[in-house]
């Protein structure tokens, strides 16, 4: 028996057979679960957008979304308009939240027109403008939904990441970091876009000063923090022309 399984031909044939069987099995699993996974991701986007505008079930220090069952209903209730901004032209599109920001960024890089989705929400008589942004952290992608008012003052934010270091960079999705952005101004007094820096030399760790364009960085997560600042600066700047038209 050992002679049979030791031969090179047998080994190669076995390897080929194994790859075919395992490949087929995985392809079958992936395609049969695909629909559910896409649906989960769609609901998550709705939850993220609602979270940014303050529709969430936060308790204590933990960030909690509204439940997936309630998300579609609340999304319809609070999000009044979904806009797509293409080269200054604003159009309504109720599938705007499904736009893949990463793909749009790539499109812009290769010279195409970038579609900018923007969601207009209303809660307690106040308008929220929520923009999805996308960038890179230390290991992989990071992204966020930032809710702003008419003057581009942050009204809430939800950050997420694909694979930042647990306990360090991964903490950008913790309340203590996200909540710091609340009330921060993106524009200077003169109305010029400046963004928000994630600062290690912040002289204002409790974040009292909301016009300093700085929040306190997370110790040990320099690259992730820089990534957050860069993504705010690059992506939110594109929305400035639209906000100017609101005045």
């Amino acid at each position, binding site marked *: 028996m050992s002679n049979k399984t030791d031969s090179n031909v047998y080994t190669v044939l076995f*390897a080929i057979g*194994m790859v075919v069987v395992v490949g087929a099995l995985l392809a079958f*699993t992936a395609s049969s679960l695909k629909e559910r*996974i896409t649906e989960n991701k769609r609901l998550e986007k709705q939850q993220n957008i609602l979270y940014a505008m303050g529709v969430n079930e936060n308790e204590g220090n*933990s960030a909690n979304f509204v439940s997936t069952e309630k998300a579609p209903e609340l999304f319809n209730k609070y999000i009044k308009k979904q806009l797509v901004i293409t080269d200054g032209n604003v159009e309504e599109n109720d599938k705007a939240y499904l736009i893949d920001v990463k793909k749009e960024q790539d499109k812009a890089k290769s010279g195409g027109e970038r579609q900018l989705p923007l969601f207009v929400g209303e809660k307690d008589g106040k308008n929220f403008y929520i923009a999805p942004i996308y960038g890179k952290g230390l290991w992989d992608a990071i992204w966020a939904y930032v809710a702003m008012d008419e003057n581009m003052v942050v009204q809430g934010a939800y950050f997420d990441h*694909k*694979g930042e270091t647990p306990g360090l960079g991964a903490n950008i999705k913790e309340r203590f970091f996200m909540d710091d952005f609340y009330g921060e101004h993106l524009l200077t007094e003169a109305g010029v876009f400046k963004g928000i820096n994630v600062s290690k030399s912040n002289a204002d760790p409790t974040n009292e000063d909301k016009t300093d364009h700085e929040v306190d960085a997370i110790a040990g997560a320099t690259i992730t923090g820089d990534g957050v600042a860069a993504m705010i600066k690059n992506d939110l700047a594109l929305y400035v022309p639209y906000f100017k038209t609101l005045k």
Partner: protein
Amino acid sequence: MGLLSKKDAALITDPLADNNPITIQVLGICSALAITAQLKASIVMAISVLFVMGVGNVVISAIRNIIPSKIRIIVQLTVVAALVIIVDQVLKAFAYELSKELSVFVGLIITNCIIMGRFEAFALGNGLWRSFLDGIGNALGYGVILIIVGFFRELLGSGTLLGFPVLGDPIAKTGLYSIGYENNGFMLLSPMALIVVGIIIWVQRTRNKALIED
């Protein structure tokens, strides 16, 4: 025992105590440190490993006579990897939020030394039923330690169990917190998991001196 002979039953019970994969064989420590900050993540990891170990051991045992010995480690790795991808996909479809929490750690099941160790040491030389029992036994032994560590880390680190506050509210100062108790944030960091595992090893070897190596 009926269904299980004495020898077979030992395959399940040994890894739970005197031949525990984590505390005695010192395998699978990495994941025990990484994901035990919360009880929920520990339980899900334990269940995922239970599935991968049980099925994986049976698959390896079933094909043990036709695996070419030259590429046997590669074959074992392929089997674990395929099973882990299936677990990952199923979690993404049916427990999406949990799968985000576990994120990279599900993928890390592949590198869990217990799995490859049991394939190599047991499933390659034993029949289907015994391999299945061995897989389940070792996964349970692993899971038990994970859950014990997760229990203490979440309780002492966050004052909650499975997310429910059990010691009162640290901000409103109710329950234990009203008499000056504080959560120990250090418990949430990996080094404390190692210390908790160390304490379990200590307790276990104090109770059974035969386990102490010279």
